[in-house]
């Protein structure tokens, strides 16, 4: 076992043994549901129910119930889509990229981040689906032969690339997440006394035996999946950005979009992980596993990705002037001084200025401050997409067709509804699934546990 440098902070606090880890993670699943959980899932369920109602109303009536008009043909729908896909980036980054970088701190957060990813991608997929108008023809997005009633899809369209990118991303993330869960399901199976839950967890565990052969294969497949998932982290949001960047609309067509969208996605994804985990660690007594150091690491990722996004904003702004192209310059002048300038300045404040506050060590180690800022960042990232989408198209080349977009109650209802569905799914996950990768955590206990680190330290001196 590799010995960790003394200056690294421990990742698992307290005097924990292997059994303590199992108890701490599996305990909440075995016991009865706490009252706060019941309360939260009721609220989330009601919001979700309302959202589903709005969606059904939309499908029954037609997309005219949104505030779209002939000039602004894309607004909240695609904004919400990109926002949710972006949030769905942190999970795979944490589980794949940080695995390749051998970052041990990811083990405390990867499971729930991956779950969040999967639920966020499902939320994202709702929006293009319901935007089609005729959702019963949704399968036409796949390249099916003409006998199925569809025309052969347009392979030149980035919207089609999106279908491939997101479905691939979703499948790989799901497999990755599930593979990681198998040993932990087995641990739960072995502890369960009641026959029915034991049976269910037994099926979920795929007959895991915990033998060395199982573990070797588990590790191999994790690395292979991480290798596959890493380019996916890049490809998904790059292709989402191409939905805009391949067009010739000023404000949309700019070459920096692919890497800048990827960075923005990781930025918002980490913010959402912070929001969820800061509640979860408290509610489920996981303070020894997800502690200030983990929060600090994630905040550093937020500084880095937020700054990359900031540099990209300024680059775009600068080049719009430098290019000398009249339309390009106008698109940006209109952004910061036109009718939607309020949304531009919200975006700038939340995404560029607010993460810089984390340079102060005290603040990035403050849980309350982090919680507030994580929400600020997600508001900012929603507005970023709103700014890109609505302000770029509300004034097109022909001033007689200039218009504005006003959200309707259905726009709002569906968006809030997806937050409800997302929260419901996450709460169910937190109740029935092992929220920490407990078997992986055990592998770092001796190198990064507080008690063991102290022991090494006294040995040496």
């Amino acid at each position, binding site marked *: 076992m590799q010995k960790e440098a003394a200056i690294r902070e421990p990742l698992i606090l307290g005097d924990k043994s292997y059994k303590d880890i199992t108890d701490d993670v599996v305990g909440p699943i075995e016991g009865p549901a706490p009252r706060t959980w019941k309360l939260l899932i009721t609220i989330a369920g009601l919001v979700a129910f309302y959202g589903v109602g709005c969606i059904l109303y939309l499908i029954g009536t037609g997309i005219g119930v949104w505030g779209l008009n002939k000039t602004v043909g894309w607004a909240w729908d695609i904004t919400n889509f990109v926002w949710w896909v972006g949030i769905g980036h942190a999970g795979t980054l944490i589980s794949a990229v940080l695995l390749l970088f051998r970052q041990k701190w990811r083990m405390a957060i990867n499971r729930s981040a991956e779950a969040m990813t999967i639920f966020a991608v499902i939320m994202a997929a709702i929006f293009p689906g319901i935007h089609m108008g005729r959702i019963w023809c949704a399968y036409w997005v796949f390249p099916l032969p003409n006998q199925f009633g569809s025309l052969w899809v347009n392979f030149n369209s980035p919207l089609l690339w999106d279908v491939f990118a997101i479905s691939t991303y979703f499948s790989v993330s799901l497999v990755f997440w599930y593979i990681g869960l198998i040993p932990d399901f087995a641990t739960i199976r072995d502890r369960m006394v009641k026959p029915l839950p034991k049976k269910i967890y037994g099926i979920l565990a795929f007959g895991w035996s915990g033998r060395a052969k199982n573990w070797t294969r588990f590790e191999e497949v994790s690395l292979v999946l991480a290798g596959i998932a890493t380019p996916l982290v890049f490809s998904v949001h790059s292709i989402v950005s191409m939905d805009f960047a391949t067009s010739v609309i000023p404000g949309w067509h700019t070459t920096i979009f692919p890497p800048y969208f990827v960075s923005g996605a990781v930025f918002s994804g980490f913010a959402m992980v912070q929001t969820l985990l800061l509640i979860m660690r408290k509610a489920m007594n996981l303070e020894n596993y997800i502690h200030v150091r983990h929060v600090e690491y994630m905040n550093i990722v937020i500084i880095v990705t937020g700054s990359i996004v900031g540099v990209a904003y300024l680059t775009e702004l600068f080049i719009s002037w430098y290019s*000398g192209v009249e339309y390009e310059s106008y698109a940006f002048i209109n952004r910061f001084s036109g009718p939607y300038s309020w949304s531009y300045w919200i975006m700038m404040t939340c995404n560029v200025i607010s993460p810089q506050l984390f340079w102060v060590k005290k603040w990035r180690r403050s849980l309350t401050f982090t919680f507030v800022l994580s929400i600020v960042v997600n508001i900012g990232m929603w507005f970023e997409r709103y700014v890109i989408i609505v302000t770029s198209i509300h004034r097109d080349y022909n001033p007689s067709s200039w218009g504005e977009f006003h959200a309707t109650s259905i726009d709002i209802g569906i968006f809030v509804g997806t937050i409800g569905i997302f929260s419901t799914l996450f709460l169910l996950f937190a109740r029935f699934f092992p929220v920490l990768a407990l078997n992986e955590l055990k592998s770092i206990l001796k190198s990064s546990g507080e008690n063991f680190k102290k022991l090494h330290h006294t040995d040496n001196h």
Partner: protein
Amino acid sequence: MEFKFEGRLKTASMVLMVIGVIALVGGFITDSSDHHQRWWANLLVNGFFYFAIALGALFFYALQYAAEVGWSAYIKRFFEAMYAYIPYGAAVILIVLLAGQFHAHHLYHWMDHTLYHEFMVVGSDGATTYSDTKEAGAVLNPNYDHIIANKSAYLGGWFFWLRTIVYIATFVIFARLFRKWSLQEDEVGGTKIHFMMYRRSALFLVFFAVFSSTLSWDWLMSIDTHWFSTLYGWYVFSGMWVGCMIFALVSLLYLRTKGYFQELNDSHVHDLAKWMFAISMLWAYLWFSQFMLIWYSNIPEEVTYFTQRIFTDYKVPFFIMFFINFAVPFYVMIARDAKRNPRFILPVAFLIFVGHFVDTYLLVIPGTMFDHNEFGFMEVGMFLGFLGLFVYVTFNALSKAPLIAKNHPFLQESQELHH
């Protein structure tokens, strides 16, 4: 243990430098292009390419501190040696820029001050004065370029020079300080210096994040003065980074065969090769993003850049360069065992090192030599000559300090690296 810079390596680097001097002198004399444009253009290519590798080393070094990386502690002195080249590279770039400012060449079209004024007055003595307003007797200035005139606040004038000096000063100062602190740590030990470098590295990365983009706009993108691309800076940055990883990996493998860095094991080599592989992919991703979006949209103000490279004689090197820099590392280096085996690493590394040189070459040459470029001994000789200089400066700097930073807090982690 100290490294002794002597023997075949030293001789080889000196022979390369002699070839370089012959290429510089002979090339200048034989270069028949107007104002020795071809010579100057190649000086810029080489000046930037090797400067970028050294800058990549400084970036990577700061990244190791800022990200609290353990595995690389054992080899960090090599990156210090590489970034010792920064002042030399900067000097070459400064010479090219100064010569341009004094109109010794015409690499930067925007350095022609006649472009910025809409009107001109031709006096009776034949002297021309330029003005922005229509004075008595003024005629339209045929040289006037309204697109470039629009950029005058950024390009034409003192602001350009201020930026250039600030970039170079920042890099030189940080490089010297990091080296100084690193050597100090050898003497005094403890963790105080380490944490100071951690904070200063983060600060450096902030500067670098902005300057790496703006310097590539200033020194390279402005060659094609009308053209613009927001991704350009990040694309050039990825080239810097991969160049640094290639040079470091090859050199460390060489040093190991000569009895230095004996604790450099397969896991270190694997990690370095992973970086070379990963950044090659990052570079290819950025190259493709920029190319595809411009090709797809096909709007005249942007696509000219690629028509100049694709519908001309540059087509063949342009696409071969992309193929080599992307496909070769992708297919050869993707396997785990290949990343640990010098027999796979070395041929790929040599090939993509030249590949990335050609990439830099194609950033500069099509916009300066247009369709009357030539390629001959001068190009090859200058590439080899600057390689010799880079090797000489790097290994000379390496010999000036102990090879191992013995008080680095992560040294033990790095020496015990095994995965």
